[in-house]
């Protein structure tokens, strides 16, 4: 069973927050939704889990019993201990006592919080809180796991651990959807959806998206900004020539995923 949205549109009054977006989530895979702040990622995920009403299109989602969802803001109760947080979701999803205990142990071990089980949620670091939230969302072995920016503001080590956790969930057959503002995280998904201003600007596997970059990419070393569409990349400039007319001094290079994201954003702005 594939979950997702087909031509999903969400409007708030006169504002269209999500505009005709199709998102497919296959069991056992990770789909990454990438976009800047206000791109419509959160609304898209909220529509997927049924928190906002679609004004157009279709949603395919499992019953609530089989969904795990973490909003961008929270994920846990700060005035409950790690163990109590897990026990709450276990009861909510009807996970039985012994199953809850073994599953909690397993997840706590995986996120490295076994020693902090009796600490309050509010006393954990940001990264630990996020890991606990993911563990809570995974406790009942959901078929669809939806996470809104789980790695924002989390240190690189915890980020890597979180991604390992999500990949593990996908390996067990869960369909995982993750929204992120970090372009480098898009590579973690088997499918990527790039969003800007509520619209899809590119979709497919990371290699598909790279392969679909039109024109030529080039690199210019030096401090002067080359003419045309260019942006800083470390000590050099990346140049994108839609009509293959690279400026003088630019050396053609194969586009990276980050290039593809920039090009997709630039291309969508040109259409508008």
């Amino acid at each position: 069973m594939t979950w997702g949205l087909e031509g999903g549109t969400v409007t708030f009054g006169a504002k269209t927050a999500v505009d005709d977006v199709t998102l497919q989530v296959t069991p056992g895979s990770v789909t990454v939704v990438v976009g800047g702040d206000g791109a419509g990622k959160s609304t898209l995920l909220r529509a997927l889990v049924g928190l906002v009403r679609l004004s157009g299109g279709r949603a395919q989602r499992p019953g609530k019993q089989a969904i795990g969802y973490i909003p961008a803001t929270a994920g846990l109760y700060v005035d409950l201990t790690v163990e109590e947080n897990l026990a709450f979701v276990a009861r909510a999803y009807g996970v039985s006592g012994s199953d809850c205990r073994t599953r909690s142990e397993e997840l706590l071990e995986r996120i490295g919080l076994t020693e902090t089980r009796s600490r309050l949620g509010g006393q954990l670091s940001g990264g630990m809180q996020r890991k606990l939230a993911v563990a809570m969302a995974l406790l009942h072995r959901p078929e669809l796991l939806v996470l809104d920016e789980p790695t924002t503001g989390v240190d690189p080590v915890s980020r890597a651990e979180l991604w390992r956790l999500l990949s593990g969930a996908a390996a067990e057959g869960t369909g995982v959807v993750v929204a992120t503002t970090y372009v480098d995280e898009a590579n973690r998904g088997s499918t990527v959806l790039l969003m800007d201003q509520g619209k899809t600007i590119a979709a497919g596997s990371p290699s598909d998206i790279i392969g679909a970059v039109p024109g030529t990419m080039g690199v210019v070393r030096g401090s002067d900004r080359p003419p045309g569409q260019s942006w800083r990349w470390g000590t050099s400039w990346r140049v994108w020539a839609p009509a293959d007319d690279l400026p003088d001094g630019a050396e053609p290079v194969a586009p990276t995923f980050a290039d593809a994201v920039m090009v997709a954003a630039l291309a969508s702005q040109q259409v508008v």
Partner: protein
Amino acid sequence: MRAMVIKEFRQLLRDKRTLGLLVGLPVILLVVFGYAANFNVSKIPTVVVGPEAAESAAQLHAPFDVTEVDPVGNRATVESRLQDGKAAVGIVTGQNPVTALMDGTQLFAVQAAKGAFARMAQADVATGGKIPVIAPEVLYNPDLKTSWIMIPGLTGLILLFIGTLITSLGIVRERQAGTIEQLAVMPFRPWDVIFGKILPYLLLASLDLIAIVLLGMGLFGVPFVGSVVTFGIGALLFLLVTLGMGVLISTVSQNQGQAIQLAIMFVVPQILLSGLIFPVGAMAAGVRWIAYVLPLTYFVDISRGVMLKAEPIAGLWVPLVVLLGMAGAVLGLAVLRFRRDLAPSARHRGEDDFEPVAAAA
């Protein structure tokens, strides 16, 4: 400093609700409370019984408001009227002296009646002594102790405070933390969440109630002569109204500050308008109706009736039914409003262009 003042004004003007409260509320409260704040009872519902009932009734003038004249009635008739709260004073004729039974739970009515009787006796002496001597007898609260009538009502006020404020804060906290979104996605029905949220507070408030009543009895010697069951039913209905009000307040508040403001707006008028301090009957007609829409008014009736007068459940059916209706209305509205937070797509399923697929069907 100028920068601070300008910033503060900008923020203040942005929060229209707080601004409205700051400017409008004091005016409304002053007007309402000014008209409500009146200890002088100008109308005392009175029954007159016994063989000379008609003659005696004819001699009674304001503040007495004779509501019933029963020549075959006796002391028991009067006691039943006082117990049911249908009258504050009952005159039993056909004996010497004539007895005036008074409901000690209606402190200010009794004081007004005593004064009126004294004036009548004085006037009678001046005109030659045609009126029989009246012997006053205060029932239920013979020493007219203020604490006896305040404590049963105060229990309600404390329940009101806990019920409304703490519940609304509890739910707003979930909203502010964002956990309410997670609850909405979990396999809960809206009423699972609402009643799951309310039940612990209901239990806590019930324990509180028992403690307050026992403390009132122990420290102030307040009697509890009526049925514990009747009192319990009244308290439960009243608590459901206050807790439901808490949920309702939380559904229209974005943060804890707004919830506190609204809860105060709901609680403060009840302190002054429920009959807890000022008798409802003495309020100006323009504000008296407010008393009748406040749940505490009915709980004060029940708690005083049961604790001090052993009023049976049959005599309290009006406040009990009103509280039941209020509880149903408030909780129903709370569930409806709360559903918008918890199941927005289910609410509009008819309009929604999808059908959620059951898991692993």
